[in-house]
């Protein structure tokens, strides 16, 4: 036997029974919602050329992608993200479509994680993209849809957190930092490394540096805005902040006040996102389960510039939460249908009849009634239907005949 014949690669796993069932449940809940809200499904290839994910200013670091080569030696990757292929689609096959365009997907993304980190290299993501629409209405639609997505997945204590990438960008550009220092500052703010942010900015005078020091601490509910408004007054970040506040108030008006918070220190992928950014959290999962934002410059890298906003949900994480909160759904059929010799076809008809009536039923492949009863008891099937020339007899499998 070969060494790796019996195992799956690190970061992957087999999904058995209830794990598969809850994942399908989460997928169904999400795509039912997305479809009802006018989004249409697209499926992009699992294998793409590396070039799709290496566009200037938006590229995915090469070390995180699974790479292969085609017969011409061209580099290919296992899909690491679904938004970039959709941007490619938007700039090519969809360029003549009536905008705005609402698309959704439900597919696996692959990433190479640090070995022994316990992370999955294969994650099912369900997501939506609203292409060709800019402005408050589009942002409102998508952020409220994000909240609804987690609600629909029966997550009780969830949180949607919104931020605006323009705040950091406006403040930092006034400092005139070189790219390396700017990136260092961004990383410190992203990590809420308060002491390091302070140290780095201590060498700069001016109001903007003072505000940047406070930026990672400005997160939470209503209370964030008064301080932020005072701090950002007169800076270029005033406008994105007031936009964020308007969005926040609208979401409150939509009754989402208890589950929406803000974080002015969200500065992930500042070269990718161009406006609103948001994340979703649920209890019991150590990372965000939903993330998204506005990315108005991405599609322009493939063709005509088109404003866009979207988000993705980590279906695996949501499914695990469903399993944790609600327990495993039953996977046993309610009835086992056993045929007396010669009555096999009648039994198959009986099975169909039961299924139409909404019972789950399984056809017994055993030769004797005794074996069938034994099997039903061992597996925990409640009822046995005994199909004979004299008719169908239903009994509890425990009692038997």
């Amino acid at each position: 036997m070969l060494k790796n014949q019996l195992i799956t690669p690190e970061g992957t796993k087999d999904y058995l029974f209830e794990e598969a069932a809850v994942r399908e449940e989460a997928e169904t809940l999400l795509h039912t919602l997305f479809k009802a809200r006018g989004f249409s499904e697209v499926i992009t290839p699992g294998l793409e050329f590396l070039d799709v994910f290496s566009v200037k200013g938006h590229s995915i670091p090469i070390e995180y992608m699974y790479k292969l080569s085609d017969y011409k030696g061209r580099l290919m990757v296992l899909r690491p993200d679904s938004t970039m292929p959709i941007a490619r689609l938007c700039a090519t096959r969809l360029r003549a479509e009536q905008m705005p365009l609402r698309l959704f997907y439900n597919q696996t993304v692959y990433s190479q994680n640090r070995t022994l980190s316990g992370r999955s290299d294969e994650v099912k993501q369900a997501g939506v993209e609203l292409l060709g629409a800019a402005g408050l209405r589009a942002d409102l639609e998508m952020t409220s849809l994000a909240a609804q997505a987690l609600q629909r997945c029966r997550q009780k204590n969830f949180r949607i957190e919104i931020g605006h990438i323009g705040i950091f960008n406006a403040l930092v550009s006034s400092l005139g930092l070189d790219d390396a220092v700017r990136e260092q500052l961004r990383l410190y703010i992203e990590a809420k490394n308060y002491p390091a942010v302070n140290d780095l900015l201590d060498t700069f005078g001016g109001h903007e540096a003072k505000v940047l020091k406070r930026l990672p601490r400005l997160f939470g509910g209503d209370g964030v805005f008064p301080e932020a408004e005072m701090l950002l007054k007169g800076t270029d970040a005033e406008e994105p902040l007031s936009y964020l506040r308007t969005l926040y108030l609208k979401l409150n008006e939509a009754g989402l006040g208890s589950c929406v918070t803000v974080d002015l220190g969200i500065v992930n992928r500042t070269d990718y996102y161009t406006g609103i950014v948001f994340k979703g959290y649920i209890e019991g999962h150590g990372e965000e389960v939903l993330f998204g934002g506005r990315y108005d410059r991405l599609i322009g890298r493939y063709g005509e510039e088109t404003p866009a906003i979207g988000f993705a949900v980590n279906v695996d994480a949501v499914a695990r939460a469903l399993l944790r909160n609600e327990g495993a759904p039953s996977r046993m059929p309610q009835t086992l249908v056993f045929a007396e010799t010669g009555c096999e076809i009648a039994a198959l008809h009986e099975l169909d009849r039961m299924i139409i009536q909404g019972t789950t039923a399984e056809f017994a492949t055993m030769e004797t009634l005794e074996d069938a009863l034994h099997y039903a008891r061992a597996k925990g099937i409640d009822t046995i239907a005994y199909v004979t020339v004299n008719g169908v007899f239903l009994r509890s499998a425990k009692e038997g005949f």
Partner: protein
Amino acid sequence: MRPIRIALTKGRLEKSTIALFKKMGLDCTELENKGRRLILPIPGTPFEVVLAKAADVITYIEHGVCDVGVVGKDTIMEYGGSFFEIADLGIGRCRFALACKKGEDFYSGYAEKTIATKYPNVSRQFFEKKGMDVRIVKIEGSVELAPLLGLSDAIVDIVETGTTLRENGLAVIEDVAQVTARVIVNTVSMKLSKVEIEKLIADLERVLP
């Protein structure tokens, strides 16, 4: 909801953190009479304490099974990860240093140098910044042995007082980084338990030496 879990780095850092907890007025009787238990309650608070090895503190925080952690900057530099690093406690102060046999000129010549270390990532980053190719050998125990036995030209290691180096005929060539204990927080916990965690950190910072 489960209690907010604070992961402490076992050993010296554990002791100095518990001393801070006491100054904050927390009930540390369980912590001081822990026996062999690894999860300990702090009565009258929403917190419980988990004792773990330094690198594991990071792992537990990253995965969100612990919420707040106290761990040395050395471990953070070596293992990295995504979490919030929100406070510098200033305790457990030491430094990363590059050291070689006393009197040797480490940077001389063009021959490739070999570095022995418990911290391969910290070492690699240090020399990458210098644009210098080195061979890095991971050592698990007393790194000072490696240059003495002729395995490496130098070591990158944690230096507190420098006594071990001196007694083995080694000397610091250059500091690599300063190290202190940090408070790290899981990115989701920080948002879902903002009030409790911010209060804990503020209280901690108030009693810092």
